[in-house]
């Protein structure tokens, strides 16, 4: 069994929280005491049925205002698969929270209200999905009950979205007509839309292929920690602990340590009490080398036959996440895997109007702004492009005055 991580996006009131509640409810994933708690809550639907959205709106302020402010994670499983859902906020002011939920997802469910079709928010969310490189999109046309379950309405929205998906180069889009409130096509196939021949949402989620197809096969492991017991029996033990972010390492492979450029050979791969012949993307292990090289946290071990990019000047997409605007005159910290280096924004190339997708020049970069910049780092950074490797192609920016995470960057080109 494997795990599918997905998130929901859409405008306020399109029914994101209701849809998640419905998925949980109809898969029998809501436990009795939790159900009792929502049945006793003050918030009810107009027809008096329980409001399933309360399940994810976990903060007092959210329940009071009836909106989602921050990501909530929910978990459920079926016989096929385990699911981790991020219920993300739709408001533009909480875009950074949405990006948080989306950054680890392999699939996005974008909701539209059947009555309104594709709106500005749909464009913005779809743009973020393409920016973050999320491979699968489900366009869930919700509230079909409000449009008499009309095939014509659904088809018109599908056509409209197809144009957008092409423009944004979204790779795989699946269109499903649903009613989160009534439960149509969420878990059970609806008998009110017999014209729809596709799978219910859950069925689709259970079966969609999740292999990290777009991920690079170049072996990389950022070193997080050096294990040195320094006891009598293990006097010379030196193990480099980290998580392989892409590709496969095998015992005997020639490797290069970056940024120093030193090379060596893998003599042993350990995982707790086991010795492994090889390790692949996703695994946390300990690597031993055949020769003494100077390695510490922040270095990256890579396969010598597939070296990464190395540069101090990188063109990157930037999402700004702080209430204080970007300041090109100050030095930020850039955290890329286990490495932290000083960084300036050398140039703002353009900013994207995320409602119209137009690019224009900008002097200011404020909260929730997105655009292309040139990063200038103090140390050489061994990286891959984000389109090849999410893990080795992304970094965060930290403001060292406040210690806040102020930006998310995705590496696109050498500058």
């Amino acid at each position, binding site marked *: 069994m494997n795990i599918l991580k997905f998130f929901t996006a859409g405008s306020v009131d399109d029914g994101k929280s209701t849809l998640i509640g419905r998925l949980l409810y109809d898969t029998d994933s809501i436990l009795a005491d939790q159900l009792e708690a929502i049945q006793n809550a003050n918030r009810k639907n107009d027809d008096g049925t329980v409001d399933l959205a309360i399940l994810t709106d976990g903060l007092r302020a959210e329940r009071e205002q009836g909106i989602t402010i921050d990501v909530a994670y929910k978990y459920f499983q079926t016989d096929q698969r385990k699911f981790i859902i991020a219920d993300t906020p739709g408001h533009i002011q909480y875009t950074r929270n949405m990006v948080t939920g989306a950054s680890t997802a392999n699939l996005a469910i974008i909701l539209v209200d059947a009555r309104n079709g594709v709106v500005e928010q749909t464009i913005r969310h779809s743009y973020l999905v393409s920016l973050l490189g999320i491979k699968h999109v489900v366009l869930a046309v919700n509230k079909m009950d409000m449009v008499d379950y009309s095939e014509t309405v659904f088809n018109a929205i599908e056509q409209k979205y197809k144009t957008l998906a092409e423009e944004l180069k979204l790779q795989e889009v699946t269109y499903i007509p649903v009613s989160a409130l009534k439960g149509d096509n969420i878990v059970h196939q609806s008998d009110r839309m017999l014209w729809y021949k596709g799978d219910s949402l859950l069925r689709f989620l259970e079966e969609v292929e999740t292999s990290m197809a777009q991920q690079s096969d170049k072996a990389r492991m950022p070193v*997080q920690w050096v294990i040195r017991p320094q006891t009598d029996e293990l006097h010379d033990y030196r193990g480099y602990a980290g998580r392989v972010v892409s590709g496969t390492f095998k015992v005997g492979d020639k490797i290069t340590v970056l940024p120093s450029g030193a090379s060596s050979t893998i003599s042993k791969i350990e995982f707790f009490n086991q010795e492994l012949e090889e390790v692949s993307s996703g695994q*946390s292990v300990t690597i031993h080398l055949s020769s003494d090289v100077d390695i510490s946290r922040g270095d990256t071990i890579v396969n010598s036959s597939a070296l990464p990019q190395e540069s101090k000047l990188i063109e990157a997409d930037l999402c700004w996440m702080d209430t204080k605007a970007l300041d090109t005159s100050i030095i930020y910290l850039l955290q890329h895997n286990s490495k932290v280096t000083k960084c300036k924004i050398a140039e703002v190339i353009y900013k994207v109007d995320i409602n119209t997708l137009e690019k224009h020049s900008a002097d200011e970069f404020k909260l929730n702004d997105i655009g292309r910049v040139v990063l200038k780092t103090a140390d050489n950074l061994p990286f891959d492009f984000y389109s090849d490797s999410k893990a080795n192609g992304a970094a965060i920016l930290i403001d060292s005055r406040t210690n806040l995470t102020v930006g998310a960057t995705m590496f696109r080109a050498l500058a």
Partner: protein
Amino acid sequence: MSKYNFDYLDELEAEAIHILREVAGQFEKPALLFSGGKDSITLVRLAEKAFRPGKFPFPLVHIDTGHNFEETIEYRDRMVARLGERLIVGSVQASIDAGKVVEQKGKNASRNALQTVTLLDTIEQHQFDACIGGARRDEEKARAKERIFSVRDEFGQWDPKRQRPELWNIYNGKIHKGENVRVFPISNWTELDVWNYIRREKIELPSIYFAHEREVITRNGQLMAASSYVNMDEEDVVERKKVRFRTVGDISCTAAIESDAFLIDDIIDEISRSKISERGARMDDKVSEAAMEDRKKGGYF
């Protein structure tokens, strides 16, 4: 990752190990909060996988309410001896004796709330800058909202409206002096995942997790251990029942469930079929809809 036959438990495990190593790499004085419950026992196994054959780069810290199940303390001491790691005990009794907190009164009195003060004192005394805990997002709806690296101010407070964005697998542990970070490596595990992992890893647990005979009383519809730590009066009827505990905390706030589950397979079976959440057996969460959020804002885990 299906290509490598990397199962979901492997994936959760690898993520947790990565997080533990980030704590080791990013902080000066981290600590692992060990409650004696299955989640923190799981954390200890993950720490072994992250750092052996080296030592843990942090001590284990137990906030001791003084109202423990005997079995958990025995277990704790045996485990610490086996690991050869350092244990620091923060005592709620000592906080009471020092007049820092006042014991609750009445029938449903519990030391659960008092723990927060002892925890914050222990953090301050040892200058811990990161505390690793076994909280999971599936436990409770406020927890479902918390980041994996959750920054707390000098007073331990969580501010849910000002959480830092947390992107990809990059964790920002930068803090100002006096602040600390609560770190939750098993955020993405469910109760069932923990049990499946314990079974797969053959991890030993305190015996109270398994069905046993015990004297209990019924309070607000829940079974509580009949113990000198629970304030009992004439109305309380002591009965002998076959029970087990689903979570382990202070005796006065942890309810038992009637169960015949004696083996781990029985437990997994029981949980898979259960219709009540694990925290449904915690009196402390029943107080109000925002009980957990409020406690977290006050410095609780």
